[in-house]
């Protein structure tokens, strides 16, 4: 047979084998290439965010020699709380700056001098005095927040080379800062403010906590509503509902809802929850309701898939020993489907955490300084905060924007890890 011109079966198989292996190899390379490209994008994204944002975790402080002048704090001599709160602390700071730089004269230059420290510095002093009234009349060195422009200069975000008229920080201000530096009166410290305060017009006083709390309350509402509703709907549709036109119609609609742009849900929320039901604007309650509408389809679809994946033999086994339909679901199907349902829920929650557009519509885009204490307090959310800061002109908000994104990504990672852990826990039942 081999003598003939037709090759033997073995030869032909061998020849085709080579091709097959080559194809397999090529396919593997495509896969590896795809992963590498995504990794590259991810690295670029993270690299950009982190390189822009890491400096926000440090903040410049200025050491001032403060004389707690009784004439400015308690002009009439009484030491009650109200007087202490309303003392002229910025006057004290100005005095201390004038003492530090006695040569500065003229209204313009003095104003420039005063702007070296943050408006927040007077809060620092007020707090100090309220905690220790005995300081009044004494002298003390106090570290206060530097202004955001100084902060930017110290961090090297403002170049000294560009001409003075193009800079917001003028030459004499830079000189003063250099002098303070030389005296060891300027220091970078960990930026606790960023993690402990709400939003502010002044970048150096702006923090993420208000937005984080807003996101937390919003997600709390979302989770509390969408998890039980979504799972109940999935169980009903998958286990109990008859297969007919009506349930088909519902199924199609759920799948459609999953693809509706989120802004539409926002508009719906505005019309129904705020204008019709009269719920408060800018509140996590309404935000949570809107995000519930948005995450429900995700949770329902994932939960149904999880329910579908529970082998029918388990249901048969339970039915066979006389379990009722409800018992089959609660004792057997649900525990087995739980990991998948949790995954779906976490994905939905992660989506909700990153959702911005519907929150803008229902007014969670407001400038909120106070940290919300409940689901009806006005608040923003993390992604909205990112949006707000990204939109602010001050240079110092650039790094804060990136820092806020990092916090947001951190929370996302935390949620996903929680999801994985929960899933592991539940999966042990198999």
């Amino acid at each position, binding site marked *: 047979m081999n003598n003939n011109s037709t090759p033997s079966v073995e030869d032909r198989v061998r020849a085709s084998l080579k091709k097959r292996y080559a194809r397999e190899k090529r396919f593997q390379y495509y896969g590896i290439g795809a992963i590498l490209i995504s990794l590259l994008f991810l690295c670029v994204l993270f690299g950009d965010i982190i390189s822009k944002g890491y400096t926000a975790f440090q903040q410049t402080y200025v050491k001032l020699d403060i004389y707690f002048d009784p004439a400015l704090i308690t002009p009439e001599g009484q030491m009650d709380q109200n007087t202490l709160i309303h003392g002229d602390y910025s006057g004290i700071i100005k005095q201390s700056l004038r003492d530090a730089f006695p040569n500065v004269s003229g209204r313009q230059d003095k104003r420039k001098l005063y702007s070296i420290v943050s408006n927040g510095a007077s809060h620092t002093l007020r707090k100090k005095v309220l905690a220790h009234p005995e300081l009044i009349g004494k002298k003390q060195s106090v570290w206060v927040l530097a202004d955001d422009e100084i902060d930017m200069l110290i961090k090297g975000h403002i170049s000294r080379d560009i001409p003075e008229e193009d800079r917001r920080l003028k030459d004499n201000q830079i000189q003063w800062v250099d002098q303070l530096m030389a005296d060891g009166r300027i220091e970078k410290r960990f930026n606790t403010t960023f993690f402990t305060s709400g939003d502010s017009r002044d970048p150096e006083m702006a923090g993420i906590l208000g937005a984080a709390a807003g996101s937390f309350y919003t997600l709390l509402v979302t989770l509390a509503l969408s998890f039980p509703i979504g799972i109940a709907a999935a169980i009903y549709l998958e286990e109990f509902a*008859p*297969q007919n036109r009506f349930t088909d119609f519902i199924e199609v609609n759920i799948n459609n809802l999953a693809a509706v742009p989120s802004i539409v849900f926002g508009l719906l929320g505005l019309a129904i929850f705020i204008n019709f039901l009269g719920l408060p604007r800018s509140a996590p309650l309404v935000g949570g309701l809107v995000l519930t509408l948005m995450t429900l389809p995700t949770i329902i679809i994932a939960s149904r898939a999880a329910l579908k994946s529970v*082998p029918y*033999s*388990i*249901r*048969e*086994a*339970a*039915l*066979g*020993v*006389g*379990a*009722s339909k409800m*018992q089959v679901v609660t*004792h*057997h199907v649900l525990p*087995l489907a739980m990991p998948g349902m949790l995954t779906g829920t976490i994905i939905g929650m992660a989506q909700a955490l990153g959702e911005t557009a519907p929150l803008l519509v229902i007014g969670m885009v407001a400038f909120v300084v106070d940290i919300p204490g409940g689901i009806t307090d006005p608040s923003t959310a993390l992604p909205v905060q990112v949006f707000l800061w990204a939109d602010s002109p001050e240079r110092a908000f650039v790094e804060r924007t990136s820092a806020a994104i990092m916090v947001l990504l951190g929370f996302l990672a935390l949620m996903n890890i929680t999801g994985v852990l929960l899933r592991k826990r539940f999966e042990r*039942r*198999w």
Partner: protein
Amino acid sequence: MVDTIITQGQTDVIGAMDNSEIDNPAEVESKAITHRDARDTVGEPFSKDPRMTCRNVNVFYGEKQAIHDVSLDIGANEVIAMIGPSGCGKSTFLRCLNRMNDTVDSCRVEGNIHMNNDDIYNKSMDVVLLRARVGMVFQKPNPFPKSIYDNIAYGPRIHGLTKNKVELDEVVESSLKRAGLWTEVKDRLDQPGTGLSGGQQQRLCIARAIAVSPDVILMDEPCSALDPIATAHIEDLIDELRQNFTIAIVTHSMQQAARVSQRTAYFHLGYLIEVGQTDQVFTNPKHQLTEDYITGRFG
């Protein structure tokens, strides 16, 4: 004339059933003639001491009829084997006996099935109660993904059969003993039932069925996924269980039917063709179809 048609069509029918595909319309025609002529049950479908009686049972999946007018008794404390080519409706018929077909939306059951004089398809019959009295063992071992103990204890728990933990422990132990599994698993009752071997899993499923003390146990090809040794184990077990339970077993293995059953029912294309004492059915079948099936397989 009729005889010739049957014998002629015979090989075709069996052949077609084996791969359960019908692609030639002419073949369908010839088969239709075959089973129309053969649908009357021959032999002894009735029992003197029936535990379950089925009369004129028809089962439909949507438009398609899967069981045609089957009347059969399941006698008390007997093992009745149901044999026949695949797709002939053995499982469908078996699943009528504990109303497992209720779970199939398209399935409709007509006729009478009584258990100890209760009509099991009556509205007043609670299917949970019925399934507590008619247990089932499936083709593929399907233990719950729970501990061995919980697998057995599940039935007694949901039916409230035991008053306390001690009683429950006893039920678990006795069920496992009767299923011949106790010595193998008594030291690892808290380990998952899914971790056992296939044969052990199937005995676990039998123990799970026994634990509710049913009157009847239905088994749908319980050994088809098992190796010969595990199969022999289960067959011995079935023989022992006969003293306390009535067993209806579907099997594709005629040797198995011959070994474990007292009566055998032969199904063909949804018709009950022949019922009789197992010896008689295998050694001296009265119906041509039965004989062809038996000899075809042995030969």
